């Protein structure tokens, strides 16, 4: 990621609001399914469609999951919280109010620790509250605007950060960490493409030591990349505006993926007055401390704890460990591989280089059994195969998983360490390239590498590179 550079001493101040769709089986206030991708309006009922006389009944699982999110981010869990109505008219909102939480959210005052190239930083989490999703409007050129109510009432949590973020890198690192932590708790799929994790960016600029500037909001960013680009662009726009002596207005702005520009959507003076008030249909949420304790015990080992364990148990660097823990499935995979092998550090390196390169997209599955990866690492570490061969083995197993040793034997990749044989390759390489040998001795020592390459080719890439290099050096010195 390119480092962002401060312009004219203006610092950006960012707070993020992240919406995460919870993976409950049923909706927040009725028993309709939350499954993604169903035919329009097949997962709705009078309750989630806001028919007159119907009443919401809070899904307890939603509270449970939201509390897990709060516990995983070191929040204080409110013993007493309530649900409020946020009133506004829009066709995707059947009741004309969204049930959310206003002044007494479920979780408050948490934080996440993120790591960027600048080091570790703690980002505060102001609050986490529960709310319902709205429906989806589909604009059809012939039929007009159609409403799909399948999403109405799908449970969400909104995670609001403190304005602690100062660079696009920190914003992305925070999002990645948040996504990892949430995914670890198992309460959401956190798939940005499917919209189960969406991000709003609040951004202002100021000079350090001066008060914060007026902020703008960019809504519904659905990839790490668009978050970063939107931040960079909006920062640039605000600095330019301030330089020209223009005033920044508080407003909601849209980020256009294709143009990479932000444009005004709605000014504050035109903003809705949501007329929040406590929803009289729903009793306050009162949580017994022992229930919260019980839920706390359910939390799995979280990314930071795993990272620390990888560093101490396997001697991994902070950077490598952070990469492995960024996704629970990857971390689980790594742990399975590490447990099966005598070479966990090599397994980690193979994952970060080869496996990450081959993995495509969110939620993709590694098609190699973890103990096979462990075995490849072991073969590499013991010198049975060299590092180039290890790459080949992983690539081959990716398309057809099998015992690595079987493949190594069949493909003839076992490393050649017999000095007699290796001397033969060295000799032949020198015989085939007398000109290079001569030039080498005249001072073109670079050609040693070319000769080394020739010898390696003669071994079909199987030669032990360390031993081969030593023998090559010896042979060249003797001449």
């Amino acid at each position, binding site marked *: 990621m390119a480092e962002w550079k401060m312009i004219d001493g203006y610092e950006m101040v960012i707070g993020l609001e992240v919406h995460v769709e919870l993976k409950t089986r049923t909706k927040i206030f009725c028993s309709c399914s939350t499954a993604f991708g169903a035919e329009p309006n097949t997962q709705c009922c009078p309750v989630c469609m806001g028919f007159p*006389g119907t009443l919401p009944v809070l899904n307890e699982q939603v509270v449970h999951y939201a509390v897990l999110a709060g516990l995983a981010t070191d929040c204080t869990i409110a013993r007493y919280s309530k649900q409020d109505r946020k009133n506004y*008219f829009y066709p995707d909102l059947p009741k*004309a*109010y969204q049930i959310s939480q206003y002044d007494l959210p479920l979780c408050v005052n948490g934080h996440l620790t993120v790591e960027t190239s600048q080091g570790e930083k703690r980002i505060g989490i102001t609050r986490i509250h529960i709310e319902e999703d709205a429906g989806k409007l589909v604009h059809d050129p012939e039929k007009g605007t159609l409403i799909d109510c399948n999403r109405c009432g799908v449970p969400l949590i909104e995670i609001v950060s403190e304005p602690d973020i100062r660079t696009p890198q920190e914003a992305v690192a925070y999002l990645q960490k948040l996504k990892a932590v949430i995914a670890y708790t198992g309460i959401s799929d956190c798939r940005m493409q499917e919209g189960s994790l969406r991000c709003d960016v609040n951004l202002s600029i100021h000079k350090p030591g001066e008060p914060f500037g007026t902020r703008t909001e960019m809504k519904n960013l659905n990839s790490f990349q668009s978050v970063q680009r939107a931040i960079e662009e909006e920062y640039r726009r605000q600095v330019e505006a301030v330089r020209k002596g223009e005033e920044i207005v508080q407003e909601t702005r849209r980020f256009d993926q294709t143009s990479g520009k932000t444009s005004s959507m709605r000014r504050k003076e035109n903003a809705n*007055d949501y007329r929040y*008030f406590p929803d009289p249909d729903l009793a306050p949420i009162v949580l017994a401390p022992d229930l919260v304790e019980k839920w706390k015990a359910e939390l799995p080992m979280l990314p930071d704890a795993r990272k620390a364990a990888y560093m101490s148990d396997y001697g991994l660097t902070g950077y490598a460990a952070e990469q492995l823990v960024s996704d629970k499935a990857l971390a689980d995979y790594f742990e399975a591989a590490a447990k099966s092998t005598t070479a966990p550090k090599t397994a980690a390196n193979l994952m970060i280089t080869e496996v990450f390169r081959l993995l495509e997209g969110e939620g993709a599955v590694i098609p190699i059994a973890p103990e096979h990866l462990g075995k490849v690492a072991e073969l590499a570490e013991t010198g049975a195969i060299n590092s180039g061969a290890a790459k080949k083995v992983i690539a081959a197993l990716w398309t057809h998983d099998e015992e690595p040793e079987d493949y190594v034997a069949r493909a003839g990749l076992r490393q050649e360490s017999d000095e007699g044989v290796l001397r033969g390759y060295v000799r032949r390489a020198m015989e085939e390239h007398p000109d290079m040998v001569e030039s080498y001795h005249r001072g073109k020592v670079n050609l040693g590498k070319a000769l080394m390459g020739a010898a390696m080719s003669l071994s079909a890439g199987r030669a032990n590179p360390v031993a081969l290099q030593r023998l090559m050096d010896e042979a060249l010195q003797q001449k």
Partner: protein
Amino acid sequence: MSMIDMTLAQLADGLRQGEMSSVEITRAYLDRIGQTEKKVGAYITLTPEMALSQAEAADRARQSGETVHPLCGVPVAVKDNICVEGVKTTCASRMLEDFVPPYSATVWEKLSAAGCVLLGKTNLDEFAMGSTTENSAFHLTHNPRNLAHVPGGSSGGSAACVAAAETPFALGSDTGGSIRQPAAFCGVVGMKPTYGMVSRYGLVAFASSLDQIGPMTKTVRDNALALDLLAGYDRRDTTSVKRGYTPMGRDIGRGVKGLTIGLPRQMFAEGLSDGVRRAVTHAAKVLEGLGATVKEIDLPSLEYALPAYYVLSSAEASSNLARFDGVRYGHRAAEYADLEELYVKSRSEGFGPEVKRRILLGTYTLSAGYFDAYYKKALQVRTLVIRDFDRAFEDFDALLGPVAPTTAYRIGEKSMSPMEMYLGDVHTVPVNIAGIPALSMPCGADENGLPVGLQLMGKTFSEPMLYRIGGALEEALGCTWKEATL
């Protein structure tokens, strides 16, 4: 005795003993409706075919020898803001003129499971907002005791059809007096149960924290029988209370000796008509004569209950009625240029003036900058009212007061003055604000022969006590139900 003059208890006896069938009873009431409904106008929708087929089913169930509910086969009328699957539920509004809910209210499911027979859906003030039923978008309902007068409201249709013997009992809903005041105006018995006793699922919400469904009947005992059927926790309404109930009428007949009954001074202050004051004071004397201790009591917060009620109920209404936007169901303007116009025209055309007034009022009080001064303040008053009642019930078994300051208004008398209309709710709204139960029952008549109603208020879930006192009063006053002469 004609079946239309029988009480629920008598009909239940007759059915049990095989003296009459549900079909016979149902036909008798449908005939009565045929004779009197043109004058009264209590119903919005009649369901005679459905009623007869339900009556036949009830008779079959009884004949088959299976255990049936005592009220199996008894007809009922349901206020038209309570959903019955497949039957129009209009809320007396153009907005829902053709709305047919694909689900039933929990109360109707209970009645239906017991084998009750639906005669029809009754008229009301649009979305239950009003005190005369004149705010119905469809037609007037006349007070069967005097057709030139209003039946009260908002459950005016339900009260009128019980008074006119067009049903043995009816369901109403009470947000600020909408069961008790029409019961008083029409000379019938109505109960506003403890908030949370009866499920609100399927009741089209006016003000969710105040709304409660309750029965309207000919007698106190009938009322207890009907409430037995309605009360109970419902998992679809999380504001309904998880608790069991013993028969509501279990203490009727135990008399009032030794009970202490309070008369809130604030309910007997100026503004009370002579006729009402005389009848209610007389009832208090009668109770004393029966051996109860009757004392005056101060409930200072009652003075603020009315404004608090109008702030809270309008705020909730403005949000509850926002869903009527012309998008998914209900009235939609025929032509509109854009989304904004679709909303504005559909809602302007669909709602009547009183509903619009409350929506505007509620929207205003919830708006940024006004919330603390109105809504929050009203919540504080609510706490004070609850506290005043709590304190009163430490010393009193029940409180007695008038239901309304006057007897039934003449049709058209108050419809031009909303403020005057609102003031008529002064004695009923504190009960809703506090969530306590109150029984409204006839206690005599004024100089024009119009019924006067009194209300007995008790602590939460004290309905059996209110029926006990009400039963004793009913007997001692001789205010037994009489069919309206039409």
